[in-house]
C-alpha cells in the first residue's frame, strides 16, 4: 500500500435523518487525525453514497444513522457497493444503534459499529488497523 497516500474516508448520511452533529464532528475529527475526509451532507440515497465512494476513491465509508432505519439502509448501501465492484471498501456504521442490531450489521459486512461515548481517537485507530489488514 502507498504509504504516502492518506486514508480516504467518506462520511455519509443515508436516508432522511437530519441530525448532522455526529457526522460533522467525526468528519472534522478524522480530518484533524490525518485522514482525507469527504462529508456527503444530508439525504443521500444508497446509490448516491456508493457513487460518491467510488468517485472519491475512498478506503472507508462511514454511515451515520439515528432514525432507526440502519438495517435496511446499510443493507442497501452494501448491495450498491457490491454492484459497483467496491466490496473492498470498509464500511463503518455509527449513530443510534441498539445493541441487539450490532450482530446483524456485522453479518451484513459492516466492519465496526460506533455508538455514543466513542472517541474520534478510537475511530481513527479502528480505521488504521482495518485498512492495514486489507
Amino acid at each position, binding site marked *: 500500500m502507498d504509504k504516502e497516500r492518506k486514508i480516504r474516508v467518506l462520511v455519509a448520511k443515508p436516508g*432522511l435523518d437530519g441530525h448532522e452533529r455526529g457526522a460533522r464532528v467525526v468528519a472534522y475529527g478524522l480530518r484533524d487525525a490525518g485522514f482525507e475526509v469527504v462529508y456527503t451532507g444530508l439525504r443521500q440515497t444508497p446509490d448516491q453514497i456508493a457513487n460518491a465512494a467510488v468517485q472519491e476513491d475512498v478506503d472507508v465509508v462511514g454511515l451515520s444513522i439515528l432514525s432507526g432505519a440502519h438495517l*435496511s439502509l446499510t443493507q442497501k448501501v452494501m448491495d450498491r457497493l457490491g454492484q459497483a465492484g467496491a466490496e473492498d471498501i470498509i464500511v463503518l456504521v455509527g449513530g443510534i444503534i441498539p445493541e441487539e442490531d450490532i450482530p446483524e450489521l456485522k453479518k451484513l459486512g459492516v466492519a465496526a459499529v460506533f455508538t455514543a461515548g466513542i472517541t474520534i481517537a478510537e475511530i481513527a485507530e479502528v480505521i488504521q488497523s482495518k485498512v492495514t489488514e486489507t
Partner: protein
Amino acid sequence: MKTSNKEERMKDDKETVEKIEKAEKEWQEKVLAPRVKRFNLPESPTRFYSPLAVKHHDFLEKVNYPGRYPYTAGNNPFDFWRAYAHDAAKSGYRPDWGGAGGVGKYGGFGTAEDYRDYLFRMQSMGRKGGPNMAFDLVTQCGYDSDSPQAEGEVGRVGVAIDSFRDFQVIYEAYTGELDIDKVPSNFTINAPAAIIIAMYAMLAEKRGIPLEKLRGTPQNDILKEFVARGTYIYPPGPSMRLFRDSCVFCTEHLPKLNITSMGGYHIREAGASRTQDLAFSMAIAAAYLQAGLDAGLNIDTFAPMFTFNAFGGSMEIYHEIAFQRAARRMYARMVKERFGAKNPRSMLIRQPITAHIGCSSTTLQRPLNNLTRAVVGGLAAGMSGAIPGAFPPFDEPLGLGHSLEAVQLQLDASRIMIYEARVADVNDPWAGSYFMESLTDETEAAAQEELERIEKRGGAIAAIENGYMQRAVAKSAYEKQQRIENREDFVVGVNVFTGEDEIEVNVNRVVEATYDPALMKTAEERQKAKLDRMKRERDSRAVSAALAALGEHARDESVNLMPDICECVKAEATLQEMCDVLRDVFGEAEPAII
C-alpha cells in the same frame, strides 16, 4: 425611620462600595492568595460574588415581580400545576396522561390506523390527553410513502400521513367527549406545517366544529431546521412565505391555535453554545415576528400565540437558571421595544419547561446516572420558573421507548422535589443573589452581542442562507468533542471514573410495548396499499384543479396559499403532490457548505 435625601443616599452607597472594595482587596491578600499558594495552584478553583458584582442593579428594571415586565422572575406568581399541587397529590393526578385538557405523551408510529389504535389503548388506560403527534421523516420532508426516498423510513420515527384520509383516521380516536373542540393537539411538523394545519382546520369543518374552538400547537419553526434538525424542503425565503401564510391564517381563523413553537433546544442539542442558543433563538423569533408585521398584522394580535418549545440545557445548572432569566428579559424587551407590543401576553416566553440538562447530557454508559443528572436538571427547572421535572427518563439514550421503571423514577423524583424539598414554593429564589444577577447580566450581554452581529448581517434568514449559523454550531460541536477527548470537560463514567473498580449498576427494564415491532415491519406495505387505493378512489380532476390553483398562486408572493392548500387537502391530494407543486415553484433547499 430615617429618610435620607438622594445625595445622602448616594454618598452612603459610595461609602459602602468603597468599604467593600477595601475589604475585598484585604481578603484577596490575606485569605485567598495564601490559600491558593498553599495548594500550589495558579488560581483559585472557586469564585465568590459580593455586592461589587452588581453595583448598579435596579431591581424593578432588571427583575421586577413575577408576572411583571420584564418577567425575569417568571411569567406569573404560580402556574396551573402549582395552584392544585396538593389536591393533585391526594387524588393521584397524572399530568403525563394529559389530564386537565392537555396533550398526552409525544408519540406516533406506523400507519394512521396503528397510531389511532395506540391512542385508543392509551385512552382505555385513563390517558385521555390530546394527540401529541410525531410524524415519520417521510411526512416531515414532504414525501409520500411510495416515493423512493421513503424506503425503510415509513412509520418509523412517527406516524405516516400521506393525505387527509390518514389524518381523519387518527382522529377517529377523538370524538364525543374528546372531540377536537374540547381536546388540543400538538403537531411536531415544520416544513409542511401549513398542510397539517389545513388538515386540522378541514377536519373541524367536516365535523361542523367552529375553527375558533381549535387549540393546540404546531411546531412550525422552519428556520431552526436549517440550523439543527434537517427536515427542511424549500429554501429559507419561500419557507418564510409559508410561515407568513400560516401565521395570518391562524390569526384570522384559528385564534386559539398557537402559531409556532420556537426555541433553541434543537440548536443547542446540535452542539451550539449557550450564547448561540439564546442569540439564534432571539434572531429566529424576530424573523417570525417581522413576518407577521410585514403581512400587515398588528403585533398584539399574533405575538401572544407564539410559543417556545424549549431552549437547550446542560449540566451547568447555575448557568441554565441564569439563561432562563436572561431569555425572559431579552424576549420581553425585544418584543416591546423593537416590535412595539403593548399587550403583556405578547412579551411572554410561553414554554412548557424551563431549565433542564439537555438530552445530550445523558450517557449510554451507566444509564442510571442519568436519573441523578435529571434530578439536577429538575432542581434547575424548579428554580427557574417551571415544574421541577426530572427530564429525561434515565434510559433515554438506550433507544425509543422509556421503561416503566424509568418513568416511575422520573415522576417520583419530580414529586420529591415538589412536595418534600418544596423547591417550587419560592418564585425565582435566586433573585437578588450577587452571583445570579451578575451571571444573568453576563448571559444576556453575550447573547445580545451575538444577536446584534446577526442582525447586522441581515438577520436570521440571511445568517442561515449564508451558512453562518450552521458553521457556528458545527464549530461549537467539534470544540465540545475535543474538550471531552482532551479531558478538559468531564463526563462521569465516560471519560473519567471508568476504571475496574467501578460497578455497572443495572436495573431490569420493562419497556411498555406501545410500539408493536410486528406492526412496524408491515407499516410500509400497508401504507402503500392504502395510498394506492385512495388515488384510485378520489376525484383526480378535482385534485388536478386544486393543485393547479396552488401552483399558480404560489408564483404570486402576495397570495396567501392556505385556502388553496385547504382545497387540495379536501380533494385528497397527497402530501407529496402538494409539496411537489411548491417544489416546482420554490425550488429545494441546498444544504449549507461548511
